[in-house]
């Protein structure tokens, strides 16, 4: 497995789902960390929101942007919650 062949599942919700017009996608990436991955996706198709407005869940858990991502991970970008 080379770094470039890492595959990440991205699920989109709310604003991200609408911006991407998709509930999710599998992405091949060489990004080492969550923030690198976000910037890579954003460069490909701009999300319209900066990482400063967003948090990230890795395999269902909130993690810092500097967290390493590994093959098979599921990533969700979280805009501020509006429940309640």
């Amino acid at each position, binding site marked *: 497995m080379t770094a470039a062949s890492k595959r990440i599942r991205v699920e989109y*919700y709310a604003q991200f789902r609408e911006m991407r017009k998709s509930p999710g996608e599998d992405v091949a990436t060489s990004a080492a960390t969550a923030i690198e991955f976000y910037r890579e996706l954003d460069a490909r198709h701009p999300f319209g929101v900066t990482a400063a407005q967003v948090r990230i*869940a890795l395999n269902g858990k909130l993690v810092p942007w500097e967290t390493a991502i590994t093959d098979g991970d599921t990533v969700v970008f*979280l805009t501020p*919650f*509006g429940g*309640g």
Partner: protein
Amino acid sequence: MNQPSAFQLSPEPIDTSLLSRGLLDAAAGAFVSFEGRVRNNNEGRQVLSLEYEAYVDMAMREGATVIEEATRRFDLIGALCVHRTGLLSIGDIAVWIGAISGHREEAFAACRFIIDEVKLRVPIWKKEHYVDGSTDWVAPPSVDTP
């Protein structure tokens, strides 16, 4: 009372009397509930309806953790929280919380704790539909993203 995972997401209208009956216990001297309802205005805009969307896996886990924390912290006999998903109309119940305890102080405090933590920690998003035909994803202004 031995309550299993007590956080639920519901695409259907919330049946409060059914949920209340799930919180009957002979040792409970207090039952306190909170209903969050859809109101017809937000920040000066006339709201027609709204949608809730959840990241279900994480929401269920975080919601269950909030209930567990509340149960320990306030020595509850039981607690339940149900949050709606999907399209809601004005007046609909968006979220229902019930807590039972030996005495009232704990149940009151637990309801407040649960709603505050759910708003902060459970990945649910709200899209408002306005009378003028526009829509917007909204979050409380107090929400701070690190």
